[in-house]
């Protein structure tokens, strides 16, 4: 399945073959599934690979009717001109992306966006990753290691099947702690437990915590008690990723900041995680409606059956909005 919906286009197609735009498509060079929901893709994007640094993100579009999806860069290869992303399939767009593999193309791949991590030699650094947070923390851990820091990584997941990149992370860390909620691998505990123990023992100069909002919130709370500076990487909803829409705004130290321009990394002790998490839930209803439509379509309906007219779409949009 390439495109699950093809519509009559109102506009002349800008990206038509033959007008030189085709070369601007971004090819997926490889894809690996890590679990039912989590997958990795390597995408050819030389301009982004040439410029990107640890801590930055990209925005991709699968097709022209698609969303702009922000994703943190998991790895990059400047020589090969590739960017690696690790994605958890949650909604329509990420589910759709999951169906794409080697040889498929994306219409847009924009980046690098956001500020790079400030990598310095500070001493001992903990990199705590929750769930797919392992992916964005990997290039940061590697850069910290290369800068001469002692790097302790903690990777946490709900269960063993959701763990990935353990070997990769082990390569760039002096010490690696694995935790799962159910104890199926490593310690049976939450990420905050080893984090707390390490802070308690002292000698920690810096903490990076990347994962779901609630995980970062509690990591920041844990380290705050010990006064250890903690960076978190925020994943708010955004459209353009260049500062234009302001949808990604978060409250940091009482000030409104834009994740795409000022972040994505912020001082975890200053971030209002409740606002962040609340804003992340902004489109739950629409996301569900969209996913239901996508899944029912993907389960084998005739493509033409869902060819809603613009009017229908607007009506549906209204219905969704009314229920919000």
């Amino acid at each position, binding site marked *: 399945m390439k495109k699950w919906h093809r519509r009559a286009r109102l506009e002349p197609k800008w990206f038509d073959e033959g007008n030189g735009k085709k070369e601007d498509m971004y090819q997926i060079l490889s894809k690996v599934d890590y679990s039912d929901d989590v997958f990795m893709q390597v995408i050819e994007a030389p301009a982004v690979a040439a410029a990107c640094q640890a801590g930055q993100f990209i925005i991709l579009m699968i097709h022209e009717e698609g969303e702009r999806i922000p994703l943190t860069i998991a790895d990059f290869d400047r020589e090969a001109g590739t960017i690696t992303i690790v994605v958890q399939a949650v909604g329509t767009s990420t589910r759709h992306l999951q169906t794409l593999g080697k040889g498929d193309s994306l219409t847009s791949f924009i980046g690098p966006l956001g500020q790079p991590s400030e990598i310095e030699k500070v001493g001992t650094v903990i990199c705590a990753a929750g769930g797919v947070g392992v992916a964005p923390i990997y290039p940061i851990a590697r850069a910290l290691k290369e800068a001469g820091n002692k790097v302790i990584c903690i990777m946490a997941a709900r269960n063993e099947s959701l763990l990935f990149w353990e070997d990769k992370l082990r390569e760039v860390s002096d010490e690696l702690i694995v935790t799962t909620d159910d104890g199926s691998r490593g310690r049976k505990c939450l990420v905050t437990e080893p984090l707390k123990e390490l802070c308690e023992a002292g000698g920690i100069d810096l903490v990076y915590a990347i994962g779901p909002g609630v995980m970062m919130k509690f990591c920041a709370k844990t380290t705050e008690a010990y006064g250890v500076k903690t960076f978190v990487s925020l994943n708010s909803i955004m459209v353009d990723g260049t*500062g234009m829409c*302001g949808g990604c705004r978060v*409250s940091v130290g009482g000030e*409104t900041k*834009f994740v795409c321009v000022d972040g994505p990394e912020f001082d975890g002790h200053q971030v209002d995680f409740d606002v962040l998490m609340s804003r992340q839930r902004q489109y739950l209803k629409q996301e569900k409606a969209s996913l239901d439509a996508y899944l029912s379509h993907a389960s084998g309906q005739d493509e033409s059956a869902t060819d809603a007219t613009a009017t229908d*779409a607007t009506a*549906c949009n209204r219905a969704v909005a009314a229920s919000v």
Partner: protein
Amino acid sequence: MRLRRMRLRATGRWLQVSEVTQTVHGDRPARKPKAPKIPRTDMPCQPAAQRAANFEEVTLGYDSDMAMLEASRCLLCKKPKCVLGCPVGIDIPAVVRMIAAGDPAGAIAKLKETTSFPAVCGRVCPQEEQCEQLCVLGVKQEPVAIGRLERYAADWEFAHGTTGEDAATTPQIAPRKGKHVGVVGSGPAGLTCAGELAKMGYDVTLYEALHKPGGVLVYGIPEFRLPKAIVARECEYVESLGVKFKMDHVIGRTLTVDQMLADGHDAIFLANGAGLPSFMNIPGENLNGVYSANEFLTRSNLMKAYRFPEYDTPIAVGKRVAVIGGGNVAMDAARTALRLGAEVHLIYRRTLDEMPARTEEIHHAEEEGIVFDLLANPTQIIGDEDGWVKEIEVIDMELGEPDASGRRRPVPLEGSERRIPVDVVIVSVGTNANPLLTKSTSGLDLTKWGNIVADEHTLATSKERVFAGGDIVTGAATVILAMGAGKTGARSIDRYLQGEPLLTAEEEEAVKGPSHQTAVAS
């Protein structure tokens, strides 16, 4: 019987033509006949009730009869004032005369000598403050509808497909000069500059951060005011001139200006636009359901969220929407929310008289049923337990003494706070300069607001080989001013790359006192 009155320029003879009989009444009448008062021709519109529920274009444009009739109202002044009101100096009387004579092909050719995008300007220029404001006919009657005629000519060209090779308007492209210019931003300033430079024979690459070209014409102005098909055609026109488009390039991130200069660009024009939305800094602005107008419009226009779920990007529509602000952007956001099915309240702290939006837009918004809540200023936004907007609190204002801008300053009436139940709030109170490009560029002087400092007449910046124009220099302004800047930028870059002074001696004389230094960056 309708009469058209035409004056033949060659002979100065007055002719009155009856449309019914097609006969000419009188040859050089003994007494100059009193000009028949043809009223300004109304442009057909979709009925308000109908258009409030769709995203199709509100105004429908003149047909050829209407255009000829309207054009025939022109007095063909010897010293046409309208031209003075046009930021790019279109030869308006010539265009109007050709339309009156039934020659839209000639008119569009004439227009395109000066403006690259008449279909856009004819729709979104504030003509009532420019050419039409100065129209002599406007003293006693209503001015000639120059904007509508411009639109007519441009639409005629599209309809008749004369953009092809055999077109009357096929632009002359000078021999290649072997120099490469980078243009940053594909909005009106960037597109114009790129097009002009390509016509002069330069190799031009146009860099755009978003996935579609057009800048504000695509993400900002809604479909019902400027159909995106028109923008796409204008972009294709620019591409047909040989301009290379590079989408998905965020200058300042993907590439820096310094890298571009080191990497084979002989000169660069920065037209990256206005940028970051401002908020009001009142409590509750981070609640769910609070949008910047930029976000609301970008979701709807660029991402086509108004066609969700056909398109994947969602938008919160709301039952009752408050739009804060009184500019064109506020009007666009309000009318978009209305079309998505909401009841819309536009909250503005002054009165209709001070409102910066175009009269036509205000008029259309009123017709469509936008509720104007004037002399009111938001003080806070109140949320429900789920973090969603529930109410907005406003305080009533009265107009006090005029401020520096000459507008009467609104003063809050103590104790007049009241709450309006709403579930979406759209903040449209202006923008700040985007720092992505400017912060990553060495040696570029900025104003204290973060806008690029560029010479008023040459658009040269403090950085060698770099010129800048449009909203990134002026702050948020109009499409036509940005196009004007694009033209000026192209002229300056051409002169710079040819080793000529940026201003000719005459221009220098005209625009500057003797003490003024040339603005050639050094």
